[in-house]
């Protein structure tokens, strides 16, 4: 029975078992209490530059949103001829398409087993649908007030940035959702443009910059990291330039944002690692290491 603590507890060692009655009270606290407590088992060490390199994906996405905004502003002001944008867009996407295959010698395509005919078909689908719907898009939101549209598209672009797949496996990441939000925003903005052609071209451009460009980026990052960094810098500076041509203040703010994301945040991440403290012990729910799907396939 668990009676009152008998004096000779020194020689009778307390042992962590339930099945035998020990001469200790039920609330006895041994010095071996919490001895299996472990801390920061899975804590990872980060390299500063590696983190900076990883953060470039975020930079890219921010810049593409910024570029999209700038282009839309130019077209809304009428400073940018739609044909010119169409031409450059087509040229760029063609080069990107060629690059896309050249980079990995086309074995990515072989893996996915996607034919060029399929690419052509989807391209045709894009063009035809956008062109067919552009009059509708034009008159779609004319009775909705402009501020509503702006608010909606800003919200959607933010959502695009939030849900974008930056390579981290979190619950909220959903590339589909982010792409759809971007397209929604582009449609909203396009419906504000003066002419039907403008709307058409704006939407195509949105496709290029939100759907195709990230795919190319991924491949670049995988194959040639060095030139990927170069491309990122180039892209960032072009975005900054475009923004500068619209408003200096916006440009400075944007530059600050980029710098803080690419340099400060990694720094803090590494600093805060020191204060990390998460507890492990026998009570943790054991996770299953090996994959069990092999038994079911």
């Amino acid at each position, binding site marked *: 029975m668990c009676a009152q603590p008998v004096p000779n507890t020194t020689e009778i060692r307390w042992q962590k078992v*339930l099945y035998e009655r020990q001469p200790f009270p*039920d609330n006895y606290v041994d010095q071996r209490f919490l001895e299996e*407590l472990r801390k920061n088992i899975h804590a990872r060490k980060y390299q500063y530059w590696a983190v900076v390199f990883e953060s470039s994906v975020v930079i890219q996405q921010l810049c593409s949103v910024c570029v999209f905004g700038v282009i839309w502003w130019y077209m809304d002001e009428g400073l940018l001829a739609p044909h010119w944008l169409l031409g450059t867009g087509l040229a760029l996407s063609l080069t990107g398409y060629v690059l896309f295959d050249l980079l990995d010698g086309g074995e990515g395509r072989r893996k996915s087993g996607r034919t060029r005919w399929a690419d052509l078909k989807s391209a045709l689908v894009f063009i035809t649908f956008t062109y067919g719907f552009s009059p509708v898009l034009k008159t779609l939101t004319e009775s909705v007030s402009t501020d509503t549209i702006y608010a909606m598209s800003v919200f959607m672009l933010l959502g695009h940035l939030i849900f974008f797949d930056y390579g981290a496996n979190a619950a909220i990441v959903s590339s589909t959702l982010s792409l759809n939000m971007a397209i929604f925003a582009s449609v909203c903005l396009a419906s504000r443009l003066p002419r039907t052609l403008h709307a058409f071209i704006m939407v195509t451009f949105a496709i290029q910059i939100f759907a195709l460009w990230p795919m190319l980026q991924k491949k670049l990052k995988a194959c040639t990291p060095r030139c990927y960094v170069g491309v990122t810098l180039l892209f960032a500076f072009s975005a900054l330039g475009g923004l500068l041509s619209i408003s200096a203040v916006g440009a400075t703010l944007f530059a600050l944002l980029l710098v803080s994301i690419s340099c400060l945040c990694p720094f803090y991440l590494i600093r805060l690692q020191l204060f990390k403290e998460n507890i492990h*012990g026998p009570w943790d729910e*054991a996770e299953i290491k090996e994959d069990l799907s092999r038994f079911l396939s």
Partner: protein
Amino acid sequence: MAYRGGGGRRHGPSAAFHPVSPGRLFTCRTPTHNICMVSDFFYPNMGGVESHIYQLSQCLIERGHKVIIVTHAYGNRKGIRYLTKGLKVYYLPLKVMYNQSTATTLFHSLPLLRYIFVRERVTIIHSHSSFSAMAHDALFHAKTMGLRTVFTDHSLFGFADVSSVLTNKLLTVSLCDTNHIICVSYTSKENTVLRAALNPEIVSVIPNAVDPTDFTPDPFRRHDSITIVIVSRLVYRKGTDLLSGIIPELCQKYQDLNFIIGGEGPKRIILEEVRERYQLHDSSKIRVRLLGALEHKDVRNVLVQGHIFLNTSLTEAFCMAIVEAASCGLQVVSTRVGGIPEVLPENLIILCEPSVKSLCEGLEKAISQLKSGVLPAPEKIHNIVKTFYTWRNVAERTEKVYNRVAGETVLPMDKRLERLMSHCGPVTGCIFALLAVFNFLFLTFLRWMTPDSLIDVAIDATGPKGAWINQYPYSRKRGRNKTR
């Protein structure tokens, strides 16, 4: 409809496991308490917590205490029922939010609970299971009313993800001024102390128990082919995925190996797929049998059909299943998680790492032992295990806790607020201190609305002046009035 005591009839056999004789003898020795067990989980719901509450209450009644149970209404089972030996159960009409746990607003349950505490002259509130919102509500109200509180934690929690962080915070708040906490194993004690940032002195370890008379080995067991039994809910936490890996491995290795799997759950489909894929249920001999959900009384009959019991849980505070299996004389193979290593001595259990490989090795070891016949006889195992865990022992140790708590003082309001604010962090502490103040005001309002003098003092069915006499249920009231 109290006299309908359906529960009493259903669980009667499992309760009447020893003669009623010693009941009154203890009462002279120790002071008796009026104990109110509060939890969302009780019969007709089935599980470890439920049976724990039921058996513990029965033993406490036998030791001359007055015990009542408060839980929420299950379906049309509302109101007040009497179970075996006059165990009185209040099924309160509260809304159930998420798997059998009531929604908590921290206030809506106060009027009823206060009424019950007053009319039953409760002195000690004993809440069970940290998953039950009602239990935490009861603790909160009891402290406001200045009653002594005990809490039993039946489960383990991690510290990793957001949800567990939040629940740990709530647990901290609700336990920071609770008089005493009971855990079912040392691991669970460590866990609780860490989660709720408690002083380990006020945390007692009292294991669960099994009723050895319910789990006796089958004297004539067939030895033609080896059978492995698994009895658990088929969910992720119980490691059903591991099971789906183990079954094909072993079935391909040993041709005379069968599996019996009792239990229901979302992961059942995986096992069925495995069975399909490896043709383990051909018409000639079914090698993997899925029995589906089991009644508590059928468990023994399933267990004694096998030779080896396999437990693949990923986390357990105190695994009752392996004790039951061992008590039925089976060789137990289990994962080394949570409090399981503390439960059985090494010669009765084979502990493995939670992976398919290690578990297979453990099982093969068990099989080889079985074939070579070095395993002790089931009756021998039963006789060993029988001495480990009994409800009477649990009741005695719980009674000690009650006695100790009865000696302590409940924090007055100001002290309580201070403790909340000092102990639970600035934000949460303040919020809950405010809530406590509101709760107190609400209580004073209720006292003004219906003063305690207006509340009829209930007639004890159990306890020192218990009026319960085992007649047929209808004439209960008359019997009661004769005794007064």
